[in-house]
């Protein structure tokens, strides 16, 4: 969108909720952030043949109703539990929006990288033993990428636009982008957006095969960082067209997107694509770099991501913006990360603080940007950015504002 000079209109975030290793609700997430407390622990959901610290959801999950049993999988249960979080009030906000706009005017765009793959893995065990998939295996309604989004749409009785975005670790951020566009283009009045991803063997063993999984809890931006700790989460928000009713709510100002055009799993070494996403976000919102009060980094704690990201951030902001990476608290929640970490940016604005970088001991001297180690209060924060970069060189930067 290089030639795009048009500004994008902000949309209101009328409700949001998160479910992660920190527990249910954005306030539980805030507690972990405020205390800079790591929620990473040894994997217990299934076995992998190597040590793995993960951000696993230990919270009991809600059950899928009988009528939607074909959608039953951990990913849908995680989505339902976050949706029904009363403190976040996403479900209640959707009900209000339904009365206001009609069920057909409310979209559902959910980002995910692996959808219901965890259950598919179990089904393959049965397939290899017996030559047949188990009777309760439903590929399209569990494993396929749109399954969780469609489940949420049916659960809420919505009938509008509904699709999944699956661009690996930028999925959740790009779902926010699609939601904002659907509202601004007049195709929807409200869109439930977010990211939902759950732990599974393929991602743990796949990242291990790339030699990117840390043996210890991850240490983003640290000189001695060893790789990622994978996590699972749901981050949901209801976006609505701006109106006097929601003028006091926080807003999505813009989402900048770009491609690296470099390599499938290794980011551009200078962070060209990452910098382009941040610049596109600033341009779409009509903001200068100085306007950003806090930047939540992608900061996966791999050698190469953190090096390229710090270069990209420095090229856009120099060392002027306080940044932190929060994956030492929640783990890298993959397709949910873009949504979960946008919620972290909202919490930074709501509580007027800069989250810390849990796990960081000694800052990598190559990192020139202003990385914040321990949480600190900051006044007059108005605008925050969250970065997400995925396989395929797929980048997105979300800007939110008070």
């Amino acid at each position: 969108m290089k030639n795009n000079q048009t500004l994008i209109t902000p949309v209101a975030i009328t409700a949001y909720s998160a479910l992660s290793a920190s527990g249910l609700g954005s306030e539980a997430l805030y507690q972990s952030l405020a205390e800079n407390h790591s929620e990473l622990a040894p994997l217990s959901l299934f076995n992998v043949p190597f040590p793995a610290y993960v951000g696993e959801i230990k919270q009991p999950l809600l059950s899928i109703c009988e009528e939607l049993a074909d959608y039953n999988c951990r990913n849908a249960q995680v989505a339902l539990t976050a949706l029904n979080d009363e403190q976040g009030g996403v479900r209640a906000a959707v009900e209000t929006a339904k009365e206001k706009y009609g069920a057909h005017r409310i979209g559902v765009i959910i980002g995910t990288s692996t959808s219901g793959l965890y259950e598919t893995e179990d089904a393959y065990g049965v397939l290899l033993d017996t030559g047949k998939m188990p009777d309760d295996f439903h590929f399209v309604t569990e494993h396929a990428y749109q399954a969780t989004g469609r489940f949420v749409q049916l659960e809420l009785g919505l009938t509008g636009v509904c699709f999944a975005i699956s661009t690996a670790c930028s999925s959740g951020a790009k779902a926010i982008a699609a939601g904002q566009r659907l509202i601004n283009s007049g195709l929807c009045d409200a869109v439930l957006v977010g990211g939902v991803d759950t732990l599974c063997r393929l991602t743990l063993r796949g990242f291990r095969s790339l030699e990117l999984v840390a043996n210890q809890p991850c240490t983003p931006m640290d000189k001695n960082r060893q790789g990622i700790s994978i996590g699972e989460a749901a981050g949901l928000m209801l976006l609505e067209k701006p109106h006097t009713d929601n003028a006091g709510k926080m807003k999505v100002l813009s989402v900048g997107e770009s491609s690296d055009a470099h390599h499938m799993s290794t980011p551009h070494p200078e962070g060209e694509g990452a910098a382009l996403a941040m610049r596109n976000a600033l341009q779409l919102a009509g903001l200068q770099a100085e306007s950003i009060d806090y930047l939540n980094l992608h900061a996966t704690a791999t050698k190469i991501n953190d090096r390229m990201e710090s270069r990209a951030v420095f090229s856009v902001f120099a060392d002027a913006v306080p940044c932190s990476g929060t994956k030492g608290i929640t783990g890298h929640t993959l397709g949910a990360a873009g949504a979960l970490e946008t919620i972290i940016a909202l919490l930074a604005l709501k509580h007027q603080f800069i989250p810390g970088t849990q796990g960081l001991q000694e800052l990598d001297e190559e990192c020139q940007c202003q990385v914040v180690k321990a949480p600190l209060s900051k006044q007059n924060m108005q605008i925050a950015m969250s970065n997400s970069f995925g396989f395929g060189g797929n980048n997105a930067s979300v800007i939110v504002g008070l």
Partner: protein
Amino acid sequence: MMKQLFIKSYAICCPDAELLAPFGLLGSDIDKSLIPAAMRRRTSMTTRMAVTAAKLACTQANIDSQHLASVFASLGGEIQVTDALCRLLPDENELLSPTQFHNSVHNTTAGYWAILNKCQEASTAIAAADDTFAMGLIEVWSQLQQQGSGERLLVCYDEYWPQYLAPPIGLAAFACAFVLSTDAEQAIGSISLPQVSEQAEQSFPLEWLMLTESAPAAAVIPLLMALQQETQETVPLNIKTPIWSSCVSAREFEHGK
């Protein structure tokens, strides 16, 4: 609100050409010459099909693919790669191939397309089961509406699937790519915003229903037939209720060819 999007070009890649005969459409086989050898060795059939269709559509539209943002729409994406990895997972000691792992993501084709064209524009990968093509059009529509003017590449594709997953999905493989624009110049047709319609699947031609049940991306065929036959009509964009449909108009742009 935009009234229509203009279709600059389309191209089909369908390895089994006979599948297209009932519809009077022509498709290309995977064109190996369009993909460099090193990339060809690493990519799946689905990516090679989608890239073939996308390259042909860009060439026909005479558009610079380096500066073209894109939307890739597929029900299952890299299903063969994912299937091969899933077969290894029950044995805890099996090592996965790192290349196959990063090739299993849904945006694999989008990533290779960006690398192939040195394109740093935004690219997305979406899925919506039977509605995947309709939702791909809606995503393109909202991108261009937001931007005010410009072009997009829309590619929809599904490859052969193992038949224990979701039969009959995957019995056929099909890819189609469009260059869509806010500008009428050189367009071969126009398309209106997809809407939920009163059409019922019982009224649809059996050949199309059967092919689309096997290759969900074949949902585009009524649109392609309208363009081919230079008609103006309302075409369905999926095969299961609720039916999304758009008005297609090919005629008024004949001179643009």
